[in-house]
């Protein structure tokens, strides 16, 4: 559920993603390689389900608002005060495409080429979305501490 929450805008969508992931897990449990980590396998399936959900909504993902940049950044130390709820809230406000690219790059450790293949977008688009995601996050965190 934590993975679903990281990839989805709200809890309802995260629940659906997790349900879908569990269905896939039950359907393909026979194919699980016991030499590998079960947790990692489940995690991978859940991320794939989140990406499927992203693909389903793909057509609405190109509407990115132009937001204000150039705010004064808060002190880096303040970031330690962010808790998981704050992070879920901030991440939930990110447009889905930015959130997915950010998660895949920063949390899962994929490179832009892999992200472009997974999400069906261009490699340069992936870079752009990551930059925009960071810009948005910076702006939202700044607003959060004001």
């Amino acid at each position, binding site marked *: 559920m*934590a993975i679903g929450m990281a990839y989805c805008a709200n809890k309802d969508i995260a629940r659906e993603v997790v349900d879908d992931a569990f269905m896939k897990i039950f359907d393909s449990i026979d194919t699980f390689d016991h030499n590998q980590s079960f947790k990692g396998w489940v995690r991978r399936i859940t991320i794939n389900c989140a990406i499927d959900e992203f693909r389903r909504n793909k057509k609405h993902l190109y509407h990115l608002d132009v937001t204000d940049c150039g705010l004064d950044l808060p002190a880096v130390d303040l*970031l330690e005060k962010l808790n998981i709820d704050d992070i879920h809230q901030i991440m939930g406000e990110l447009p889905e495409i930015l959130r997915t690219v950010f998660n895949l790059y920063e949390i899962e450790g994929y490179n832009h080429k892999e992200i472009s293949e997974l999400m069906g977008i261009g490699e340069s688009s992936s870079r752009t979305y990551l930059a925009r995601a960071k810009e948005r996050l910076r702006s939202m965190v700044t607003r959060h501490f004001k």
Partner: protein
Amino acid sequence: MKVHFDKVLANKIRNEILDHEETYEDGAWERFLTRKEKRKNRILYWYFTGIASSVLLFTSIVWIHQKSGHQPLDIQNPISIKEFPLPHSRLLDSISAKDNSNHFLKDIPITFNSNVSTSRDTIKLQNRTNYGLALKTDSYGNISEKERSIVALTRAPIIYGNTLPNVVGKMDLLNAPFKNIDLVNEELTFHKKEKDIKGLGSKRRSVEIGFQISPSYGSNNGSSQALTSTNFGGGVTLNVPIKSSGFTFNTGVVFNDLRLTNEESMLATSEASMEEDNFYKEETRMNSLDIPLNIQYRIPSKRIFFYIQAGMSSYVTFNENAVSTKTTFREVEVFYDVNGTTQSFRVKEAVSLKKESDYEGSKFHPLGTFNLSFGYKAPLTDRIKYEIQPFYKLPLNSLTTDNTKVPMGGISLKVSLTP
């Protein structure tokens, strides 16, 4: 500064998310089981529908083949014949054809159990010691009231109407130049007109160009989703008969105007334990060109006939427009001041959010749908026919960017022209 900030922020987010463990939500497992059961029922539904359709299709094909099984006959024109029983029988190695002037017309090798068959009848060759005779008369195929006859004799004439002169009339077997011929006092041949043969040539199936309109409708309802689609198509089709068979290759280009509506309602509970009713509606409009590749099997009959058709369609899609509306109905608590006292009450508010997307590029989707249909075809004039063709299209690949697949059924109305 920014780079450092981003790095620290990304690390913070990564650590928090990876370390976070979401507490189990009451009812989550039951909710999952409910969804799983619904999915299982849906799979069973499609499984049994698939089996039933396959059985129906197989039965239809077997039935059609039984009705129309025939071997092509190596004679100039098709014949239908009536049996002419003879008192003795012996099998023939070969027979030859002669006209009433005892001129040999054609040698036709016939072996034991040879079936000289038409679509409905089989000529049975019968013989006596020195000759055999079979005669059948009937109308055949598309040529109503035009008759063919055949006479077969052991080492003696096989005479059939098509090869006889117009004036033949009766065949006098007594004068046939063979020994031991019994009297067969029957009219053996029939007048045959030259136009009969011409008529046969012109009745061959030829290429047809058709114009069609095809409205269709489809729906695919899930647990909380209602997905409907309406389509209106119009275009040109081409029927190319496959030589010496009842099959026809069908293709064409059909312009489609497709509208998809996806409605979903979801009841959720907000943090303040107030109920939220979310209603999603997504309307997609898209134009496409349908390029079908179908095989049509014609059920043999006279001028009016039925056919079944199956194949695949590829699509070129363009001009996709999607409008998504999310409406949330929720209860909110409103506070207001009455004479210095704060009072509150709950009201229901609706919040609506609308997004619109346009895609003007075109995309090719090979093997977009599996097509299955049957049809009725009848002539309007000698060269123009009309067709009524109910059809079913099962999506193999999605045409829209959101991977929506909706099976559709409809009816095509066609007018086809033989150039």
